[in-house]
């Protein structure tokens, strides 16, 4: 089965604290994973893809195939990071590109 699990509905941290948004997946083969962010009243935006291995807005995510995880991390949270974060997996057949989303985690960064 192809599935994405984000166990936390809400994560609340203080500004400057480290953040880790959890994502676990179920997929046989080599997965292609993404993090999307949705700021208040805005569209879903790509935050990062695991294959590009880049850091966007200070966020990074490492694919851990052993733990089937793709957790999103940032060492020091900012108030403007408050948003809904979705982990997504490119499902099979991969040539159609359909995305399978997790439930999403609301990140709340308090001043």
């Amino acid at each position, binding site marked *: 089965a192809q599935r994405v699990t984000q166990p936390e509905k809400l994560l609340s941290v203080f500004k400057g604290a480290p953040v880790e948004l959890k994502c676990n997946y179920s997929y046989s083969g080599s997965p292609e994973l*993404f993090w*999307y962010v949705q700021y208040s009243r*805005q*569209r*879903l*935006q*790509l935050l990062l*893809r695991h294959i590009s291995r880049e850091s966007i807005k200070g966020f990074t995510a490492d694919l851990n195939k052993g733990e089937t995880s793709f957790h999103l991390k940032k060492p020091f949270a900012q108030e403007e990071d408050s948003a809904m974060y*979705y982990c997504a997996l490119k*499902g099979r*057949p991969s*040539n*159609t*590109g*359909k*995305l*399978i*989303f*997790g*439930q*999403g985690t609301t990140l709340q960064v308090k001043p």
Partner: protein
Amino acid sequence: EPEVTQTPSHQVTQMGQEVILHCVPISNHLYFYWYRQILGQKVEFLVSFYNNEISEKSEIFDDQFSVERPDGSNFTLKIRSTKLEDSAMYFCASSAQGETQYFGPGTRLLVL
């Protein structure tokens, strides 16, 4: 920077009525998608479209749903006879090569 656009932003309809949701994908993109998100639930894939035909559809995308690319720019989702459970946010997305998908702002559909 080019963006996917969707109209209308909100649509209220009566159960049993037909609705058409409109999307204008990014102009040089070749892959098009519809997703929906029922309030409080996850974003779910409905259908993908490439080369003027459906490439994949989910179990949700039954005979009540259809998609069309009537001209070179629009990509529409039609629901023939809406049900209460069709109330959701509908997102259109497009992709150049099937990798990164760019999402529209969504249409909020309310079926009464």
